């Protein structure tokens, strides 16, 4: 249930922010998590996976 808890806590945080604050918040969160993970290859892989729906959307 860890992923579910994470989903809830992040979405709750975004709900409290104005739309123009959400992007900045997510960028800060990424930096903190990247530091926690401490593995640039894992982050690069995650970035690719997160970009995948965008790429597929453009192809479609």
């Amino acid at each position: 249930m860890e992923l579910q808890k994470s989903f809830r806590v992040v979405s709750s945080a975004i709900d409290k922010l104005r739309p123009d604050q959400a992007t900045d918040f997510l960028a800060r969160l990424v930096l903190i998590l990247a530091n926690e993970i401490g593995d640039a290859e894992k982050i690069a892989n995650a970035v690719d996976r997160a970009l995948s729906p965008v790429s597929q959307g453009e192809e479609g």
Partner: protein
Amino acid sequence: MQVETPRYFEWSRYRSAPPVELSALEKADHPIAIVGAGPVGLTLALTIAQYGIPVVLLEARDTLSDNSRTLAVTRRSVQILDRLGIAQAFREKAITRESNYVYHGRRLVSQAPYGQDPQEKYPDISVLQQPWTEKVLLDAVIESPYIDIRWLNAVTGINTSDPLRPELEVEAPEGVYSLAARYVIAADGARGQVRRSLGLKYEEIGDGVISRNFVICDFELRSDLPIARRLWICPPYRPNSAVILHRQPFDVWRLDYALDDDEDIEKAMSPDVVAGRVKEQLSLLGLSQDEFRLVWISSYRPMSRSLPCYRAGNVLFAGDAAHQTPIFGGRGMNQGLLDAANLGWKLALVLKGEAPEKLLDTYDAERRPLIVQNLHDIGLATLCMTAPTKGAALMRKAAFDLLPTEPFILPLIDAFNASKSECLDPAHKDMPTHPAVVGNPLPDCIVQIEGKSAFLHDLLCPASFTGLFFCVDDPGASIPATAEKTGARHRTYTEAVVHLRPHDRAKIVLADDAARARLEVEDGDWMLIRPDGYIQSRITRPSAQEIQHEYLRAIGCQVEIER
């Protein structure tokens, strides 16, 4: 507000005698011509002159650099000056950077001392305006009987139709002449005539780095503030930006900041606008805003470029003529001095007939990969600060916002101490600074020489390889005679015996366990140190034949031995 004349240095105008080429019936036969008497050309000329080889040094100007330029001089650079016998003169003028302060808004978020390692003879960073550094070098050049420095002698072209004897076209006040030399060294900067005449182009390295303009200004102001580098993130007068303030010697300060994409550079560089910035910054420090003098305003756009090869036949390139490195983190002039130290001894040994010509190929093979790695590293390390894209700008804002509460952000923002590997051995390049492994510069440490405190680097002979033999007891006859080790025709090898503990007959002793641990040496260890301070070889209890082999390998004779 006006930009006034600086008071920290008095620029002289230099003159030189008419070139001999304009009066001689026969062409002079020069072993070496160096184009450019900046810090790299001066250092290279001195290095080669130490071996008793004549050098012609051609300089288009008649004076030294006209502004402060490179301020931060690394320990390695001062060690190079030490080998030239001028480190003391340099240090008498320089100040030692003591601390690095990082602020967010008005709040101090980090205060870290610079490395003041007691085992090192010189500090991590010395600070001195470049004209002073050049003056220290020039004083030694003027003293040298081997260096013919020619002011107002501008190189206008180069003819390489005889590849073994490149010929420079030179314009002097007394007339135009050509000067042939066995080797021409281009140390004439990024817009140098030698490179352009040969049609050689730089390659962009890294992510194309940094399409951003920076403004840089010097101002004079008396203050008792600590000698530090100060980085402001999001200063109150300019949110979401960064400003660096450097303390220089002689009550001079430098302010350095990036412009936003939409800022007009002409307007940003006007004295009134710059003075406004200085006042805002002084206000943050609680200093008087009315007593400073602006003495220099300039701009720069960091470059990340390198020639694809630093040798073109008998023409070799050094410093900015070979590569343009962003100035962040003390990389510009300092990398050029490392070029000069690497190239100087090789040229000297080849010209003396002690080393084969192919030794010169190792200059490019050793220096260019390090420069390229440095360019990649600095491009990555400064991406956050320069934020050249919308993605980087978003992530930079995130980093700035986190700085006050998240210490891990600091290295992302402050790239000064980003990796600057100097290791020649790729297998060891990611090791920490000090390990005394082959390919690294020799770490320094404290030794006792006949009871007096000194440093290991004091044992390194100028213009020579040095064999360091570490032992517990008197090595006696176990050290073969030098002539036997290196062969009669090789004379640039000297040796010192360093004892690991005090001994009746021990002249030189490592001071303590810290020194021994730093070098990781045991009884019987031998190190071969190159003239530029690199550890060439390490062997425990080497035979005379092994010592000879390692020395000859170091000067490019490996194939001859194997035959």
